[in-house]
Every structure is written in structure tokens, then in C-alpha cells.
């Protein structure tokens, strides 16, 4: 019952952390160069770097991290499984496929062609998931349907790589899929933000229903919540938010999986208490990882998705081993 005030404290702390990391992200450049480091560039160039290069990057870090963290927490609550993550509902796989289709067929109808393709892919995957398993009372059906959709989208993505007209096209696809928030513009932010915010708002309405669902579907219904409506809201919200984000950034794994686990020792196990803090912590984690990738001065810049997977995969293994030690 002590959740209320403690949770506000955690949220305030996380919000300060996000604000600080946001500022560092905007002010830090390649190799850790603090802006304005090169005074001789002049005011105009500095403004371009700040507002057209780094600001969209930091904003995308907040939006993408927030969406991934929040949706990860909601899906772990919905599926009552601590190993669930946003990729599970097929939105990332669908977005990757949609973007790859744009690359492959060279449908570059503008700067936003890839995000639009990705978003359409994510929505298609989501519609397929809901048609296959949305009304099933069994969460396992939902999980397996998500796995199948991801596998199929992955196979089609590989097929596109296999048949890529040129090594250049294949390379482009591969680099995009690694996931990054570098070199994106304000138009990308403007594209992703409305869907991400709408999706996140939808997911944030499900907290109490997810708490009730932790006692099973029948009990949730007897407590006045509709499991079917909750499933729809979480899947639709995740699809919108994660679909929009992934179609701009590429696939960034493990943030949605890991963030709720980092928070449980502080806010407890209630899905409702995890949602908002997970959005903030997701944003903080992604901003921090994105600052890390630009610190090395030499060599190609590391892709954000590569770094989150490098850190996240061992963490995932740690969770599985911990779960085996302590029981379910």
C-alpha cells in the first residue's frame, strides 16, 4: 500500500535522469566532443548541428525508449510472463519487413518512404496477430502466433536480402535493421511521435486491468475488467507505438524486456505501477546507450541496436537463470 508516494518519487527521479541525459545527448558529439567545441564553425553551423542533427536524435531516443519500455512492461503484464518484450507481438518484425520492401523495390518516394513502409508492415503484422489469436483466451496462443509472425516476417526479410539487386542494397537493408537513432531528422520525429504518443496513451489506460489479470482471466472479469478489451488495447497500443518507432529507428531489442526488470525491485510487481516508470526508464536507457555509441572517435559508429543487444542478451540469460533458481 506504500506504492503511491514511492512511485511518484521514482518517477520524479527518472524524469530528472531523462532530462539530464537528454541535455548530454544534445550537447555531446562524436568522440565525446562537447558542443560548442569547434568555436570556429560559427553560430550557424553550430545551430544546424544542435537542432537538425542532435535534437531529433535525442527526441527519438526519448520516444523510442519510452515506447519500448512502456510496451515491454504492458506485454509482460498482459502475457503474465516476465520474458515478454514488444518484439513478441510481431510489430518489429513486420516493420522491418515493410521497410525492407521499400528498400528492395526502391520505392524511395521521399525521405519518409522507409518509415511509412515500416509502419504499414507493423500494422499488417498486428492485424494478422489479432485475427489469429486476439480473441483466444489462452495467452500461449498469442505468444506463439507472435513468434510465428516474427519468423515469417524474418524469412521474407531474408528472402529480400537473398534476392537483393545489388550488394549495396543488401548492405543498406542490413544497416537499417541494426537499429539506430543517428542521422534522423525532425521529419522522422514528426512522423513517429503522434502514433507513438497515441499508442502509449492507450497502453497507459490498461494498468489496473493488467493488475487484475495477474490473478487469471476469470478473476479479472469478476473484478470488473474485460480481458478481451485489455488484450486489444495493449496489442493495438504496442503496435502503434512500437511500429511507429521501429519504422524510424530499425530494430532495437532488449530495452522493452530489460527495463521492467530493472524497476521491479523499486516499484514492485504490479503491472500498473511499472507502466509509467518503465516509459521513463526506457527513455533513459536508450539515451544513455545512444551517448555511449558515439563516444569512440575512430572506426565506424556502433549501431544502437547492436549495443542494446550486446548488453541485453546476457541480461536476458541472467533472468532465465535467476528464474530457474528462484522458481516461477
Amino acid at each position: 500500500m506504500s506504492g503511491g508516494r514511492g512511485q511518484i518519487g521514482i518517477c520524479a527521479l527518472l524524469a530528472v535522469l531523462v532530462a539530464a541525459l537528454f541535455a548530454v545527448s544534445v550537447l555531446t558529439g562524436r568522440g565525446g566532443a562537447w558542443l560548442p567545441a569547434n568555436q570556429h564553425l560559427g553560430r550557424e553551423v553550430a545551430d544546424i548541428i544542435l537542432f537538425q542533427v542532435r535534437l531529433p536524435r535525442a527526441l527519438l531516443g526519448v520516444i523510442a525508449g519510452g515506447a519500448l519500455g512502456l510496451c515491454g512492461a504492458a506485454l509482460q503484464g498482459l502475457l503474465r510472463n516476465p520474458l515478454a518484450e514488444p518484439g513478441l507481438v510481431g510489430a518489429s518484425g513486420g516493420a522491418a519487413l515493410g521497410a525492407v520492401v521499400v528498400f528492395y523495390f526502391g520505392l524511395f518516394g521521399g525521405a519518409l518512404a522507409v518509415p511509412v513502409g515500416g509502419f504499414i508492415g507493423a500494422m499488417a503484422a498486428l492485424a494478422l496477430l489479432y485475427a489469429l489469436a486476439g480473441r483466444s483466451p489462452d495467452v500461449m496462443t498469442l505468444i506463439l502466433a507472435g513468434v510465428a509472425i516474427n519468423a515469417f516476417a524474418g524469412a521474407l526479410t531474408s528472402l529480400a536480402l537473398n534476392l537483393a539487386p545489388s550488394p549495396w542494397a543488401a548492405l543498406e537493408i542490413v544497416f537499417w535493421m541494426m537499429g539506430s537513432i543517428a542521422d534522423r531528422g525532425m521529419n522522422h520525429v514528426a512522423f513517429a511521435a503522434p502514433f507513438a504518443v497515441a499508442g502509449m496513451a492507450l497502453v497507459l489506460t490498461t494498468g489496473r486491468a493488467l493488475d487484475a489479470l495477474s490473478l487469471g482471466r476469470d478473476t479479472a472479469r469478476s473484478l470488473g475488467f474485460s480481458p478481451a478489451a485489455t488484450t486489444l488495447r495493449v496489442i493495438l497500443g504496442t503496435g502503434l507505438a512500437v511500429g511507429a518507432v521501429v519504422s524510424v529507428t530499425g530494430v532495437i531489442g532488449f530495452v522493452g524486456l530489460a527495463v521492467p526488470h530493472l524497476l521491479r525491485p523499486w516499484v514492485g510487481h504490479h503491472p500498473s505501477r511499472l507502466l509509467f516508470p518503465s516509459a521513463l526508464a526506457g527513455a533513459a536507457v536508450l539515451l544513455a546507450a545512444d551517448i555511449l555509441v558515439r563516444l569512440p572517435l575512430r572506426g565506424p559508429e556502433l549501431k544502437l541496436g547492436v549495443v542494446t543487444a550486446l548488453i541485453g542478451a546476457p541480461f536476458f540469460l541472467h533472468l532465465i537463470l535467476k528464474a530457474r533458481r528462484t522458481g516461477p
Partner: protein
Amino acid sequence: MTVLQARGINVSFGAMPAVTGVGFEAGPGTLLGLIGPNGAGKTSLLRALAGLVPFAGTVTLDGGPIAGIGRRSLARTVAYLAQGEPVHWPFTVRELVALGRLPHRPPFQGPSPADREAVAEALALADVEALSDRRVDTLSGGERARALLARALAVKAPVLLVDEPIAALDPYHQMHIMEVLRAYAEAGALVVAVLHDLTLAERFCHRLLLLRGGRLLADGPPHEVLVDDNVRAAYHVAVIHHVHDGERITLPWRRVDPAS
């Protein structure tokens, strides 16, 4: 004070009828035992009363059909404890019990003083106060059963439906739970409990409904329902009766040939 009335309840799974034409009426102050052999339709009937399965017929609360009651309002009026209710996260007992207050909490608000009071009351009723800071996944079977019952009691609903609350418990904990259910009923609620233990059903329930093959075979006070013919017809079991301190005891004793 809520009177529950069920009329012509039919529940079926596809073409398979689970409950056929069951009707009864029961009011506050009653611990109503729902008994019958495996597959008799006890759980299906209970789920219909809770509005958890589609059914034909009508269930009314104080004359109003449950279909017309809003979801949240119904959740405050009828509490339901599933058999072997899962707890998917390692909540503390107090956190688990507090989930029973969800139907009472307005959106975006923390627990009210009334919520805290109801949780404390439920913890005390089910005798799990001493466990309130323990994690649910560290409890024994008997402790867990009482913690889950406390969750359902915390709803403070005038109608409480419980499915096999004493399955897999030792005699001490079985009697403990039955006492809690009876006390909750006698404080002014209607409690409907699915039970398998005929001896405890007779000992603690005010009234029994005996189901067989989805139909109501007998309905009345325990000593009228648990007569040889009824038990034999429903369970294919012969019982022995005994009187101890003026109370009648019924004990299932041996199987009988279903054909006889």
C-alpha cells in the same frame, strides 16, 4: 442484503450440456453448498451465477437481471474465487488482498481509507494478518488458500461465490476455511461454495444443492439432501450416519454398483 435468484439455467459447451434447467433462490445469511459428483456441472453453474460463461435462463440480484448490471457494479456485488486461482507475480499477501478492492477504486486514485480498512478486515477474517508481508509464492498450500480467500473477502460483496475452496487442504485448514465462509455468510452475505467433502458440507452449510448430470437432484437443509437415496443416486456411494453432540454426521463409506 442481496437475494440471488436463478431460473432455468442452461450452460453448454458446444453441443455438450453442462447445466440443465437449474433454478433456486437464496438470500443473505446463507452458506449454500453446491455439491455433486465430478462433471455434475457445479463449476459451470457457479460461473454462470458470476456471469463468467454464456448461459440461457436468468440470474437476478434483488430482482434485476445480472446482464443489465454494469460490469463494475456487478464486480462490487458478486465476488468470485476460482478454483486454484493463479497468482502470476510474487505479490505480498497484503498486495494480493488489496487487488480485491479494484472494483471499488475510482480511476487514477490510490486506495481510500475504506479500502485499507476492508483489506485489514479481510486479512483478519481469513487469519492471514501475520502473513501480510510474506510473498505469496513462499506460502504453504493452506496459507495460500486463506490468502486467496482473503482477496475475495476484501471485495466485501454481498454475494460470494467460491469454487472448491478447501480442495487439497488438511482437515485443520479445511475446517478453518469453512468457519470463515460461514462467519462471512452469517454477517449478512450469501455464500455459494462448491464442495466435495460431504461431511464438512453437512457440518457447515445452511443449505445444500445437489447436482447430478447438470440437473438439480435435491435442494434443502443438509439432513434432507444427504439422505441415502440421494447420495447413492448422485455419487454411487453408500453413506453412514452418526449423531455426535446432537449434530448429524454423514460419512461416505463404500462404493455401490451403479446398476443396482
